[in-house]
């Protein structure tokens, strides 16, 4: 027998208890909002989470430091690269390794692309739920162009596992420049259209202006971070406050709101995307020249791979053994020089005994990456706020404990307070403007 929920225990005489969720079209995931209603008015609310709990932290304790990277993709599945980035930073802090400049710049580029796509997705869903289906389609279109860049380079749209301990997996795709330019152009166009469609739209303003208002002090007390905190007027951004990667090299502003309502959260996200595009524009010229073309002309990929595996690494290799841009020639630019913590280039592993041993040592159970004993916390600015990893190492090749500090948990915890006393219809834009990603919240 289950004990009744708090909302059931405290229910008033004559009020109506209604479940919203766990499978509701407006909750973009499985979350259950229990409501105590008097007509349309919300007297009380309680949120139940855990429907998407996949034991992320327990699983990580049973995986090696290298293998658990793929699980970080599945946290905030709209911007997986930022999760990869956070994990890699925490591990680099623990291991004390430096990342080459080019890898840091690639990380900045891809993190910003992810941030824009994260915000686009959030606003698309939020606007659609308020009735603006056009905005949804426009935003999804822009996101496709940005994901083209991500897909070309990482080989996946969502499960990227691209940013690794010590650097990145491979160099950028040769066509990244044109793809990024197209993404910037299309996103700018869409942002202009969306501003025109929503900024002075009476229906949208009616649903969002002065709805879900959060005060500054209260937001800090709730542990809010990211765009939601900035909408209340506090200019806290991890990229500026605790610069990581190469963020201190770039010019960007931190947009803030005034009232802390749904409309401000929308506006902060819109203006943040413009700043992210600005950062991308500054990064792209620094990444010249692009990755050298590694596949010899006139060879089929299969033949190229075969030929490359028979060559000695002493000779200059024109073919890529894995065709992904992680060759010996580019490895020093994209991965740390510390041989203990990075995978050797495929040329070495296939053709030299030292390379093969290093490769085995890296992947053998009980060997691999073994950080010193200790604990570390490192954070990055994710799409919704501070994404922090707390890692406890006991000196073995698996983390003793890995904890994710996700930005969504404090946000969703405050939902009960934000919607109390409002109408049922106000839940939808309030929930939408917070961009709750259940994959990250439930872990």
């Amino acid at each position: 027998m289950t004990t009744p929920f708090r909302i059931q225990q405290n229910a008033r005489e004559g009020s109506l208890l209604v479940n919203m969720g766990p499978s509701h079209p407006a909750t973009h995931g499985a979350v259950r909002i229990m409501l105590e209603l008097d007509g349309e008015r919300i007297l009380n609310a309680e949120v139940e989470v855990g429907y998407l709990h996949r034991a992320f932290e327990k699983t990580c304790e049973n995986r090696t430091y290298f293998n658990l990277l793929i699980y970080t993709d599945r946290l905030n599945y709209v911007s997986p690269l930022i999760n990869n980035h956070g994990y890699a930073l925490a591990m680099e802090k623990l291991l004390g390794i430096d990342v080459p400049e080019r890898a840091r710049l690639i990380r900045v580029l891809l993190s910003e692309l992810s941030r824009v796509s994260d915000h686009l997705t959030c606003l698309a869903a939020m606007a659609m739920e308020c009735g603006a289906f056009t905005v949804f389609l426009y935003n999804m279109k822009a996101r496709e162009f940005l994901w083209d860049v991500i897909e070309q380079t990482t080989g996946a749209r969502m499960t990227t596992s691209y940013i690794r301990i010590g650097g990145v997996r491979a160099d950028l795709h040769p066509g990244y420049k044109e793809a990024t330019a197209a993404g910037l152009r299309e996103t700018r166009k869409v942002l202009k259209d969306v501003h025109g469609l929503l900024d002075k739209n009476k229906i949208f303003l009616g649903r969002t202006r002065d709805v879900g208002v959060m005060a500054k002090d209260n937001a800090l007390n709730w542990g809010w971070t990211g765009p939601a905190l900035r909408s209340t007027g506090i200019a806290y951004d991890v990229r500026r406050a605790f610069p990581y990667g190469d963020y201190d090299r770039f010019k960007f502003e931190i947009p803030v709101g005034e009232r802390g309502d749904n409309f401000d959260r929308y506006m902060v996200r819109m203006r943040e995307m413009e700043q992210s595009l600005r950062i991308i524009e500054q990064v792209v010229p620094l990444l010249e020249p692009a990755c050298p073309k590694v596949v010899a002309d006139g060879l089929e990929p299969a033949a190229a791979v075969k030929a490359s595996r028979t060559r000695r690494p002493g000779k200059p290799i024109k073919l890529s053994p894995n065709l992904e841009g992680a060759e010996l020639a580019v490895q020093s630019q994209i991965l740390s020089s510390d041989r203990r913590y990075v995978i050797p280039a495929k040329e070495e592993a296939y053709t030299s005994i030292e390379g093969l041993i290093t490769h085995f040592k890296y992947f053998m159970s009980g060997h691999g990456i073994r950080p010193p004993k200790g604990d570390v916390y490192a954070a990055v600015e994710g799409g919704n706020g501070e994404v922090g990893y707390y890692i406890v190492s006991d000196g073995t090749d698996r983390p003793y404990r890995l904890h994710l500090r996700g930005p969504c948990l404090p946000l969703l915890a405050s939902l009960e307070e934000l919607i109390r006393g409002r109408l049922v219809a106000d839940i939808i834009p309030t929930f939408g403007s917070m961009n709750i990603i259940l994959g990250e919240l439930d872990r």
Partner: protein
Amino acid sequence: MEEKSDFLTALAARFPGAVVETSSPLGDMALVIRPESLFEIAAELKNGPGDFATLLDLTCVDFPDRPERFEMVYHFFSLSGLRKLRVKLGLPGPDPTVASLTPLWKNADWMEREVYDLFGVKFAGHPYLRRLFMNEEFVGHPLRKDYPFRKRQPVIPMRTP
């Protein structure tokens, strides 16, 4: 670095006996305290000159071999000073209980429920200590080291065993 250790030393001097250890591993500020003085120190962190207005994170680590089996880890964040502070304390294995921080920070509510759910640590003074992620019928606390990794407790029985 200088400023960080000064801050920690000043804080430790204000609570003689309560602060067991101060350190700054890898550039973070860390503090180990006695469990009974948690609430007092947390209130001082929040309202004192440190101005730690945000409880950034709250979690627990299980060390089955230690006499103080559960190690609670708090991360506080000060916006005005741009500082992060890690506070740790040990709790005994049988019946681990620590003061709840819900009167000071509202998000402590859910985070403490999470730790209660996954580790079985109880929080004295918590208004609504209920499992956060697991269903209520769930037996045990999954993030404890003695909970088997592959153990399943399906709510609806599996069709194929």
